[in-house]
């Protein structure tokens, strides 16, 4: 790999280019790809032939693993005070317990951040309520 300073997602050291790039959740990617696919459908009889295998597989994957169905729910999830990368991993995996959340995104528990177990649990509850009532 690039051999610059140690990159480590668990510590939120994710490299400059990724800090500047926007992170999307599966459901957001699904919206974008489906929109593009619909545009192709309007322009041609056989849209599946117009797209690459990468597009097809990606669309299939994000549709299967989308957690939130509507843009409002996604907007609510994005309001949390977390790094975008962390938000997206949590939004994609929807951990059920605090233990699971910390295992998936170790950086939310690192020293100095205002996230104790109770705060994390409240956030997970909110995330699942957002899903329930969308």
């Amino acid at each position, binding site marked *: *790999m690039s051999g610059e300073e140690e990159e480590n997602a668990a510590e939120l050291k994710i490299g400059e280019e990724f800090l500047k790039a926007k992170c999307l959740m599966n459901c957001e990617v699904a919206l974008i790809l489906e929109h593009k696919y619909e545009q192709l459908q309007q322009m041609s009889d056989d849209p599946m032939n117009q797209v690459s*295998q*990468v597009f097809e*597989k*990606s669309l*299939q*994957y*994000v549709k299967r*693993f989308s*957690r939130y169905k509507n843009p409002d729910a996604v907007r609510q999830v994005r309001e949390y005070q977390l790094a975008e990368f962390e938000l997206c991993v949590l939004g994609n*995996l*929807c*951990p*059920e317990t605090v*233990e*699971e959340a910390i*295992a*998936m995104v170790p950086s939310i528990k690192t020293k100095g951040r205002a996230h104790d177990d109770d705060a994390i649990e409240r956030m997970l509850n909110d995330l*699942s309520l957002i*899903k329930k009532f969308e």
Partner: protein
Amino acid sequence: MQLHPRHFGRNLRENLVSDLMKDAEGTCSGRHGFVVAITGIENIGKGLIRDGTGFVTFPVKYQCVMGFFAEAGPVQFFVSNHLIPDDMEFQSGDMPNYTTSDGSVKIQKDSEVRLKIIGTRVDATEIFCIGTTKDDFLGVINDPTTT
């Protein structure tokens, strides 16, 4: 491994190993799973001449990498036996699978698993990753649309 006499000579061992790789890699062993890659030759025994044919048979002991392949969107993964929980064992048959000793958890074709990427290889057309299912909260997942 059987070898034709034309391969005898200085390169006997190399020919044997390359034939072994061609024959065994990519196949499925009933007991252990997919032979993905041969990683080392432990021992090549004395050759036995087969009566009537002139071929010589050598017993070869080798080590190899076993495991399963997976896909996440356009990305390909390989998870080696070493990175699958110890209590999961390979079961051969019509639907080969990895199962826990009590039969409660199974990984087979079309199963959905959560895995952690521990290494990647990127080239011009694809990304290939090595993954593990050995940590907490990894492995077979329940249907996410019902959570």
